[in-house]
């Protein structure tokens, strides 16, 4: 059953540029959906429209069957966690959490119980009297999360909540948020530009570029089967090679790959782990650099026309710069006119 229903939403800013272009999405009850894309892809604007901080130019947003498109943020059943956590520095932790409940004229005893329960949930039991400025970055972000959760919103909105934290803390909070979200079964929309975050947390990922949806799928599908060259290039590492198809063969420089599609231009996509390299006397490429990561190695190759390819190899010590090599793609996908036309 879909809790959040976004239909054909478009947002045009005054300059005329479309930040979000006829975007549609259904989010099921208890689902965590990640909006993933580079900066300027419109993912934050979309989230802010769900929260009520921006008005769509056209289209509609429905929560639990109620059209909220023109409701102001204070009248929507959404709770937002901001990138800069946006805690009110003139209030202590307890007051930050209690503020929304007080506006709802809840009795003081009930407020106290609720706030303490939520602080406990985010692992900050006993921190109520602290001023927000005395907390570490991770703790501040937990308070911001608690502040949204305490009002029991139908939909939780997270706008790059971990962007200001360091790598280590980010990974820990990621797991915590996912745990809390699953325990409460709260429907969540999560904006990020980090693919690790999206791949590790989301039930489904929406990949966005230039205000449009590129692909909506489970994380593993998005990784294994990117539907557009943009997704192929954005998620994980990928060799994208532009070339021509003639008589069932894709050609670029000395590289030829069998590809059963009609003749014409095409973009070939090969993951580095799907590109095998062997030493050869009739080389199609030359080794530019070998990097040893311990568990595996990465070989940078140049085709004769200078096109750079990456290959993941188990034994990097077998290769050296300047060496001539032959390449064998194992799994490939091909794109034409922004559509996938072939996949092995």
């Amino acid at each position, binding site marked *: 059953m879909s809790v959040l229903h976004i239909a054909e939403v478009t947002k045009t800013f005054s300059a005329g540029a479309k930040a979000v272009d006829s975007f549609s999405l259904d989010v099921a009850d208890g689902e965590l959906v990640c909006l993933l894309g580079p900066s300027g892809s419109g993912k934050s604007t979309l989230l802010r429209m769900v929260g*009520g*901080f921006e008005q769509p130019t056209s289209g509609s947003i429905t929560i639990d069957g109620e059209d909220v498109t023109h409701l102001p943020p*204070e*009248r929507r059943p959404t709770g937002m966690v901001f990138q800069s956590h*946006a805690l009110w520095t003139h209030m202590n932790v307890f007051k930050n959490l209690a*503020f929304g409940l007080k506006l709802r004229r809840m009795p003081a005893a009930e407020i106290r119980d609720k706030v303490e329960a939520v602080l406990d949930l985010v692992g900050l039991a006993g921190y109520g009297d602290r001023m927000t400025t005395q907390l570490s970055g991770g703790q501040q972000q937990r308070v911001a999360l608690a502040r949204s959760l305490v009002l029991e919103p139908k939909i939780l909105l997270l706008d790059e909540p971990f962007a200001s934290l360091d790598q280590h803390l980010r990974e820990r909070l990621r797991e915590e948020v996912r745990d809390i979200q699953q325990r409460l079964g709260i429907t969540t929309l999560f904006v990020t530009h980090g693919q690790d975050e999206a791949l590790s947390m989301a039930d489904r990922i929406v990949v966005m570029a230039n205000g449009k949806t590129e692909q909506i799928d489970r994380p593993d599908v998005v990784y294994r089967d990117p539907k557009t060259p943009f997704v192929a290039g954005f998620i994980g590492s990928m060799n994208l090679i532009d070339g021509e198809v003639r008589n069932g063969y894709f050609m670029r420089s000395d590289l030829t790959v069998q590809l059963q599609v009609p003749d014409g231009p095409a973009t070939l996509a090969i993951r580095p782990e799907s590109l095998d390299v062997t030493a050869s006397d009739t080389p199609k490429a030359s080794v530019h650099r070998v990097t040893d990561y311990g568990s595996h190695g990465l070989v940078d190759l140049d085709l004769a026309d200078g096109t750079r390819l990456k290959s993941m190899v188990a034994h990097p010590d077998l290769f050296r710069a300047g060496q001539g090599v032959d390449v064998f793609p194992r799994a490939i996908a091909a794109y034409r006119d922004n559509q996938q036309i072939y996949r092995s």
Partner: protein
Amino acid sequence: MSEATKQAVRPLVDTAESRRPIGLLFVAIPVFLVIWLVIWPAINAISRTVWRKDKSGEMGFDLSSYAFFFSDSYSLDNLSITLWTTLVCAILLLMICLPIALYLRFSRGRLAAYVQALAIFPMFVPSIILAFAFIRVLGPNGMVDILFNAVDLPKIRTPYLTPWGPVIGLVWDNIPLTVLILLAGLGSVANQSIEAARDVGANAVQVFWHIILPRISNSILVALSFSVLGIFSSFTLPYLLGPASPEMLGPFMQRTLREVQDPVGAMTQAVIAFGFCIVFGLFYVRSVARSREK
């Protein structure tokens, strides 16, 4: 925000060079001027009004000029009209400038730019031109009278030469800096912290009361201090627009010094003005020093 301001809030850069007194040479003349023409006159005014020659010509501790001021009904009337004007101006300034500053903080576009330009405009109008314009508009047979007459309304009771004359002029004159200071304070309220409040259900009034007001209370006090310091001893506008009696402390001091030729009396009045403003002065200095040291 310009580059200059970003840096301005930083402390003075500590250079790697060791402390060299040569810098003192560079700053010597301005510092000397401040000591000679700001700090010394203030001390001098206090000391000369409490430590002076009595009738027999001997120097001694003597508060008679203060005793006179506080027993003379004319002086007291002048003091109370000054306090009244300052208070009314402060209230009016806040009532006018806070809504304008709030509007400017949360609006973009040409209309907002126009409103901002107009609000800052009086800064570039010397008070002497303001006084002249005031008389031509609100004075007897001024523009307001002309327009009222044209639509068959009765003449207004002109505020010219009444206590309301200086009030209107001083409020007009002080709008720009009050708006600018409030706007600077509002700039420190992050958009996201307001959005977070709306997200948990606060309407515009609740956002203002619970989120914005606590954050800008210091700026409000700075703005008020600054206008109080200016208004309490203002001269030009009360002199030209206000009633001849009772008069505000500014014109009163000027008359005592230059026409009555009673320097001790004038200095006594000045010291009393210092006394009434000392709280605002100290608060103002403290705030500015703090914002610089941040």
